[in-house]
């Protein structure tokens, strides 16, 4: 579905919220697992990552729904069909990986043999979606990690592509994702 020349305020807001959330989760996930931390600090960071990660998953689902029902702007005519195809595949993988990272995290927590639920800042606990299972939990932990690495690579490629459009191709791709009304080209 393509229509109009720009994405609209809702999609643009969701895109940048999603970008911030995903980058923050990747950074926090790497820090909390790799840094040499005291147990209490590590526990708190894991709990924060779980709560924010679950909210990021919800945001991803909302974005996918909005993307499915809302018309996307027309492709810029200067973009070749091959680039357009690559972008489509890239965007699909971004959504898919964001979804996979979130879901594997949720299943990992749900099936963990240490029952520590996702605590949404003391307000409510997110329900489990799997039963306790050490093998499943370990598998999900690995899947979560590798999917997160793949997502990080794809986010970097996505950002690099946007910058290339802006600075090398000098087209409106990035401008229309920051809400600037592009000149018709």
């Amino acid at each position, binding site marked *: 579905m393509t229509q109009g020349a720009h994405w609209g305020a809702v999609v643009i807001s969701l895109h940048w919220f999603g970008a911030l959330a995903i980058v923050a989760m990747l950074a926090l996930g790497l820090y909390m697992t790799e840094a040499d931390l005291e*147990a*209490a*600090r590590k*526990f*708190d960071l894991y709990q924060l990552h779980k709560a924010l990660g679950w909210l990021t998953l919800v945001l991803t689902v909302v974005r996918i729904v909005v993307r499915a029902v809302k018309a996307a702007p027309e492709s810029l005519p200067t973009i070749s069909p091959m680039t357009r195809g690559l972008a489509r595949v890239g965007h699909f993988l971004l959504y898919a990986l964001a979804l996979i990272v979130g879901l594997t995290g949720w299943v990992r927590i749900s099936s963990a*043999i*240490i029952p*520590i639920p996702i605590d949404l800042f003391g307000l409510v606990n997110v329900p489990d979606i799997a039963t306790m299972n050490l093998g499943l939990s370990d598998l999900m932990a690995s899947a979560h990690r590798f999917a997160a690495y793949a997502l990080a690579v794809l986010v970097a490629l996505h950002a690099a592509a946007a910058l290339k459009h802006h600075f090398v191709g000098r087209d409106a791709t990035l401008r229309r994702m920051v809400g600037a009304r592009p000149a018709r080209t």
Partner: protein
Amino acid sequence: MPSPLSNIFAVLTSFAVLGLAGGAPASEPAASSIDPARTHIGFTIDATGFPRTQGEFHAFKGQLSVNFDRPSLSRVSFTVESGSIDVGSPSFDGTLRGPAFLNSERFPVIAFRSTSVEKVDDKTARVVGDLTMLGVTLPLQLDVDVRRAANGQRVGFAARARIDRLAYGMNSGYPIISREVDLTVTSEVAR
């Protein structure tokens, strides 16, 4: 007419005589309460892929009776409020108080009572007693280092014990979280 002071003396003397007649050893001191300000109850537990967790319990009561002449007559007992656990994070504390670990709502008290005290050497004693946790009572051995302060007025104790939490039914997280919990209790009494 006897003075009030001599009356008190008479009463004290008769108590002492009754005590001896009852067979109580003259050298056994009365049990004294553990001074919370001079006592620390701490623990450490290991896990795979997670740093060693160290914590302590803030709320406890205890009685300590040390007989330096006849160590086997010494006694110690204490009760710890399991809900007073502190590992440095309220959220982590809450998890440890929960049903997966200490289950503090159902089992608010962890109790220890010595059944034997044995002097190993001048600086070491071995205390054996019963530890009750999560409704299960099992024997526990504490190795105690005894340190006398330079002025000889106070004696410090550092007790170490290793608890097998699985034996008490605390299975959560095993084998990622180790089954052994190392317990350290330090305290001090006036001689």
